[in-house]
């Protein structure tokens, strides 16, 4: 599978190169993208890939970044931490040292301690586990997307408005799912809600029936779901057949996203969830991004993961321009403590923990312009949505 993908990824990279044309003979900016091109999270990895390809083409069409051409190379990780570490190392050895685009938090956590040895940097755009910018933070690791604690900061005030007293949790048994579950429990405790059933399903579960039955038997009135990709679709399809969503109020994170809603259709209607990015956000920069996106990928709007990965690319390329260098050490220096122009406005990359300070949103799946999609009903500004740096993260300098 890997060799096939390697070949295909090389082709894709070559295609990107070909469209780029010739730019001044400055050193090329090489973006390495180890991501899930197959497996449970293939759908998320594909979104990361599309966003990177879009950003690369956009930059090259403008004549590159400060005269530098941009190139990207993709390798399959299947969202597995050990494979991600190997693929990232391969990319770094081949000179693609500006890494981004992995899906599962475990992947970022596996790469983090190796970055300095590889002389690379890693910018997370999808990994949510708090540790990435918490206890496991690294001088060469950065995150532009919202962390679990930030989702918690949105869930806590939202939960206060809900009447359901007893809640169940259904999450993926990986670093992110466990983290999200813990985060929800904190929000529940803050609101004096009880957790009556906690379920963590193995990554890539086929049959969710036993979990669904457990949740039904637990007497839960509300359900928090932290499942993504294929897991999210399998769970939602089966839960709907059991009538779970009619009996239990459901909300989640990465569960009902632009892409899963497309597959699930009516089954996802009315489900609530955290929205980290939406194409409907009303900033001039975002409107331009959405319009350009539709030109590159006709008939589509950028999804949440595509928007977040694009923000990652904006941040990386601006840091290269600021550093006027493609050397990972220089780019890392230019990243920390700098404010970047993103599609969601100006955002600061905190130097204390390397977390980009951005807003967060909440909403539910409804109809907009005749299409089902997650619609924002509550916005939380950046200062409140991104909790203060975790003291467990100690970065030098």
């Amino acid at each position, binding site marked *: 599978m890997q060799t096939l993908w390697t070949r295909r990824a090389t082709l894709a990279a070559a295609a990107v190169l070909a469209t780029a044309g010739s730019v001044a003979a400055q050193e090329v900016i090489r973006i390495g993208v180890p991501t899930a091109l197959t497996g449970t999270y*293939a759908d998320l990895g594909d979104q990361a890939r599309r966003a990177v390809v879009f950003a690369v083409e956009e930059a090259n069409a403008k004549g590159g970044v400060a005269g530098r051409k941009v190139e990207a190379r993709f390798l399959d990780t299947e969202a597995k931490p050990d494979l991600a570490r190997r693929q990232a190392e391969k990319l770094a050895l081949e000179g693609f040292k500006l890494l981004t685009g992995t899906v599962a938090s475990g992947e970022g956590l596996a790469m983090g301690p190796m970055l300095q040895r590889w002389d690379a940097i890693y910018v997370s755009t999808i990994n949510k586990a708090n540790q990435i910018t918490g206890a496991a933070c690294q001088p060469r690791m950065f995150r532009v997307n919202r962390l679990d604690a930030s989702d918690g900061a949105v869930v806590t005030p939202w939960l206060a408005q809900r009447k359901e007293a007893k809640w169940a949790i259904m999450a993926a048994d990986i670093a992110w799912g466990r983290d999200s579950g813990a985060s929800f429990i904190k929000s529940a405790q803050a609101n004096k809600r009880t957790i009556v059933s906690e379920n*963590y399903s193995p990554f890539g579960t086929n049959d969710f*029936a*036993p979990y669904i039955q457990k949740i039904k038997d637990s007497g839960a009135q509300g359900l928090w779901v932290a499942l993504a990709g294929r897991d999210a679709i399998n769970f939602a399809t*089966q839960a709907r*057949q059991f*009538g779970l969503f009619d009996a239990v109020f459901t909300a989640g994170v990465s569960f009902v996203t632009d*892409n899963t809603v497309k597959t699930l259709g009516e089954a996802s209607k009315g489900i609530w969830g955290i929205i980290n990015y939406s194409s409907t956000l009303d900033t001039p920069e975002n409107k331009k991004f959405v319009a350009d996106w539709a030109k590159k990928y006709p008939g589509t709007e950028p999804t949440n993961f595509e928007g977040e990965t694009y923000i990652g690319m904006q941040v990386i390329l601006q840091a290269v321009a600021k550093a006027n260098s493609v050397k990972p050490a220089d780019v890392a220096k230019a990243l920390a403590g700098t404010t970047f122009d993103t599609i969601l406005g100006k955002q600061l990359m905190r130097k204390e923990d390397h977390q980009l300070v951005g807003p967060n949103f909440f909403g539910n799946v409804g109809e907009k312009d005749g299409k089902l999609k997650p619609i924002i009903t509550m916005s939380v500004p950046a200062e409140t949505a991104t909790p203060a740096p975790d003291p467990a993260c100690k970065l030098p300098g």
Partner: protein
Amino acid sequence: MLINILNGLVYGGLLYILAVGLVLIFGLRRVVNFAHGSLFMVGGYVAFAVAAVSNFWLALVAAIVVLAVLGVILDRFVFRPLQHEDPIATVLVTFGLLLVLEDVVKTIWGKDFLSLAAPPLLAGTVSIAGETFPVYRLMVIAVAVLVALGLSLWLRFSRIGLYVRASSVDPVTTGMQGVDTDRVSAAVVAIGAGLAGLSGTIAAPLMALSPSMGSFILIDSFIVVVVGGLGSFTGAFIAALVIGQVHNFGIVYIPWAASMIPFLLMVAVLIWRPTGLAGGRA
């Protein structure tokens, strides 16, 4: 409790239909078909494509027929030349086949997850012991039971069933008795592949269609085949039932160890009863 048993039967039933195809192909051709999961996946996609222009039932028939034809082709050009090769060669070739089929599906249908709705007739729920239970899941159990009954009757009472049983014990002697084992094999692989198409279709309304969906379920079906005993039809049936229940009750009562239990069961069988639960009867 009853609902949990039923849920175990659903997953076990699905595994049985898939695993018994593996057993059929192994019995006749001595080929461990790693591509079986991708046949299951292709079955799901064929059903998805046909259902888009007609209905679920036609899709079900189409998936079985298309996969059976694919089975005949595979038997003639892949399994027949492979039967005298080293097992490692068959493993490599069938694994390669899996990659090819996955890529073909990716090229035709793309990588996005697809979903096939249950037929309207079976989309509702029934009340069992005061709990709601999807009608569709009952259908899955019924299909598995029908497949088990049909196969055992066919193997026991039909002439070709007799040939199949004879060939899977000793293909050479059976051939010397005047049975055209290649034709028997073609029929058997067609049925095995057709069953993979059937299981792919009935699984489609339960889980997302994706090019790699076969690999998610293949491991479980291999566990069923090993626990039941390679080449044993009864063994596959018993093992699928056991694995289905163990999977379900594991998650309900000892969730932290649930995903380990089927593997532990397999290890236990390999240590104490290496010929499988059915004791090596073919």
